[in-house]
């Protein structure tokens, strides 16, 4: 193939542009697109609990019975006016139990203790450091705060459910019908409404918020408060926090870390005192 000077220069030029441009584009994508989640300021309030990155440890050794789990779930679902539609199709849940093999799919081993395989782990939104739900939301209705909490703006959500497709943890629920409504027997879906917390409208997505409304008042999340130490909530960036102490002294696992979302919820599998 013969090539004149002009053609050579053209190709050389294009190659240079591609060579220089490629990495610039990649760097730009990383910064602008992939980590686009502009962090949103946490409203300042005196007496509020603050952190650089909130996280939670679920200590399964403290959840021996169904009652241990249920009181935590009830505490959350009651104060947040989570409706109960009585069927799995419309179900909305913020925190709930899943057995080991479902909470940690792909991690189950053939000969692991049956008790562990069937152990119901409490699962909730992981408040990922790199949340795919925030990345995909077309209206910034779901966003990340500077303290690491992944939040929802229920007044902005258009109900496209892209976040539900994107969340690898199935942490998000959609209001398939009116949560403020009643069933055929006239029983309200929200059994006992908590007037301190807003109810939602039809057609929006919701999930655990690490109780931002309570943190603002200086209170621990409702689930942690009700858990008798089974749920340790604290600042992952603070070396001296209880949660870091827990993480230092126990072997913990997180869900689906291979996906790179970096969950902020850790699990102590428990059993013996110091496993």
């Amino acid at each position, binding site marked *: 193939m013969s090539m004149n000077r002009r053609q050579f220069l053209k190709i050389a030029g294009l190659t240079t542009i591609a060579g220089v441009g490629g990495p610039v584009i990649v760097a730009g994508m990383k910064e602008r697109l992939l980590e686009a989640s502009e962090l949103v300021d946490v409203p300042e309030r005196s007496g509020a609990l603050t952190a650089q990155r909130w996280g939670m440890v679920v200590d399964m050794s403290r959840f021996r019975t169904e009652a241990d789990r249920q009181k935590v779930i009830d505490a959350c679902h009651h104060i947040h006016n989570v409706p109960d539609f009585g069927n799995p199709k419309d179900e909305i849940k913020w925190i709930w139990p899943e057995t080991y093999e479902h909470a940690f799919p792909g991690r189950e081993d053939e000969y692991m203790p049956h008790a562990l395989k069937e152990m119901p782990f409490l699962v909730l939104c992981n408040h990922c450091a790199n949340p795919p739900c925030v990345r995909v939301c077309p209206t910034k209705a779901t966003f990340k705060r500077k303290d690491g909490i992944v939040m929802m703006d229920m007044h902005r959500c258009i109900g496209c459910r892209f976040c539900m497709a994107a969340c690898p943890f199935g942490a998000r629920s959609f209001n398939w*019908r009116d949560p403020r409504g009643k069933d055929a027997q006239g029983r309200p879906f929200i059994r006992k409404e908590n007037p301190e917390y807003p109810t939602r409208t039809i057609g929006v997505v919701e999930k655990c918020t690490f109780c931002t409304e309570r943190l603002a008042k200086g209170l621990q999340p409702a689930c942690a408060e009700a858990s008798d130490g089974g749920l340790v909530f604290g600042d992952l960036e603070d070396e001296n926090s209880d949660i870091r102490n827990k993480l230092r002294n126990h072997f913990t696992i997180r869900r689906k870390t291979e996906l790179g979302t970096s969950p902020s919820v850790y699990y102590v599998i428990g059993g013996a005192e110091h496993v």
Partner: protein
Amino acid sequence: MFEKALQGNKSYWIWIFVLLAITGAGFLAYLRQFTYGLGVTGMSRDVSWGFYIGQFTFLVGIAASGVMLVLPYYLHNYKKFGRLVILGEFLAISAVIMCILFIFVDLGQPRRVMNVMLHPTPNSVMFWDMVVLVGYLILNVVIGWTVLGAERKGTPPQGWVKPLIYLSIAWAPSIHTVTAFLYAGLPGRHFWLSAIMAARFLASAFASGPALLIILALIIRRVTRFDPGKEAIQTLGKIVTYFMLTNVFFLGLEFFTAFYSGIPGHIHTFEYLYAGIEGHDKLVPLMRISSVLAVVAVFLLIFPKIRANETMLALASVAVFISLWIDKGFGLVVGGFIPNMFEKVVEYWPTGLELLISLGVWAIGLLVLTALYKIAISVKEEVEL
């Protein structure tokens, strides 16, 4: 030129009123969904996108396929497509309108739809999908209308249209690429997380769209005095053949990676779709029909002698269209959610109301298509006869 859509014989008006009636029924069904919520559909916490988003995805492909006529005609000066190009462009308009409507009926809070523009979010693929779809709609409306208007006057189209046409050629693949990116960039959805997704989307689009155009062209020849041209239809047949083969090949690549690697997450959805998992097999009959039709279509298309027979070509086109409609309009979207994020199988099946709303959207699309085709064909008849 609009007036042409308002003049027609009795069968034209019967067809229009049938479509209007279906649209009306769909609208009533939508009102029910609007008040009750999306709970009227078969969707759930686990399968949170269903028939609507499937139809949307399939129709983006139909819209993009207009480029299969525009490109040979304008870039390669393939004159035989002269009579068909406008049909491709107008099909794209109708398809994009249906896409937008399918997204709209899928929204939980449709009144807030403008939030996508009020709070533009460049890190969301959905934002870009809106940008490319709206852009493509505008391009096709402007180009189609201007070129047809010029043809009516017997003058060449205005000079400024040319750059827009070239832009639309580059734009068409972008709409389907971006639509594929809605799926192909989600961590944890193994079935969708495939680099070949966009390529497969384009291949299936460029097979199903021209297949639909062949069917439409043959219908037009029957019901009007306008003949899109035997050779043009044969060329479309060739395009369908190549892209259908490419599509089947790409699907084969997905199967290879999943089953040879043996990684469970990659296998599960294929298993669910084509064989069922632990008795959960609602989609299996559909997917098998899709596969059989694909094989039949490839057989009819691959031999030039069979393809040259217009009846056979029509049959093959119908087979391609239905096969890919099932594959992309149903299996692809629903399959991505099964098994769910907890590796449990929760199935999905559309409800009657959901199908009625979808039918309504299709009826609106067909109304737009009928009106546009009526205008285009009337102009062509006027010029030629």
